[in-house]
């Protein structure tokens, strides 16, 4: 997700469009991305650690983005 406080022009554009479509009460729209990853790991903890390392190294740029690992499930 774009860091809070950082201008998110995509979110703003969607916010305006929703208002134009008469959806009332839209306070804020932020646009991020979801990445689905399947990994081989011995445990949920290990999988989470792997994905966290991937996020830190490649998937998120801390200058503008925050990330959260949503859920880790056995496939």
């Amino acid at each position: 997700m774009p860091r809070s406080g950082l201008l998110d022009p995509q979110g703003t554009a969607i916010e305006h469009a929703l208002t134009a479509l008469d959806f009332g009460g839209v306070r804020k729209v932020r646009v991020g991305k979801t990445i689905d990853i399947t990994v081989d790991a011995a445990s949920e903890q290990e999988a989470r650690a792997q994905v966290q390392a991937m996020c830190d190294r490649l998937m998120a740029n801390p200058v503008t983005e925050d990330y959260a690992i949503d859920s880790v499930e056995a496939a």
Partner: protein
Amino acid sequence: MKVAVVRFPGSNCDADALRAAASAGHQAEYVWHRSRDLGGADVVILPGGFSYGDYLRAGAIARFSPVMKAVAGHARAGRPTLGVCNGFQILCEAHLLPGQLVRNESLSFVCKPVTVEVESTSTPFTAGYEGGQKLVMPVAHGEGRYVADEATLDRLEREGRVVFRYAGCNPNGSLRDIAGIASEEGNVVGMMPHPERAVADLLGSEDGRALFDFAADLKH
């Protein structure tokens, strides 16, 4: 001087950059991104384009190309390194320059000549200009909005590392109208405008030519 123009899959300003460097009298050669060395180049140029289709974030995947270890070594050794447009994005992703380039505030791809003011002549690429000189060069990008935290921006200003600033029209919403910055040592420069597309009157401007003189003064 020997110049390496690095080609990534999706680079599209490589030929222009090579030609601009060659026209300035340098021996310029392409280096494929899988290469692990720069062929003894004195100057490295990361050209514009859309490396890896801008997937994930512009420059995020290219920065892990094998050649980038050599580029980082070259840059950290204080040797002249220029990133234009996508090249600037790659230098930021590779942490060779601070900050990041994000989606233009307008959400539109912007392709037009812009005016920038030269603010620092203490780089190998801008030593041929006068401080305060105004240059016209084209921009062509969808993700050129320079962002960094306030402390970083203040530091860049304080250390005289804002190399180019948009004058009059800021085409992408860059913080503090920043169009180009330099590393601490001044040898690494990233810029969104395309100097290689402004090297002849026929192209509408030749204001970018002096960038390719690469300052005989290589103390940087």
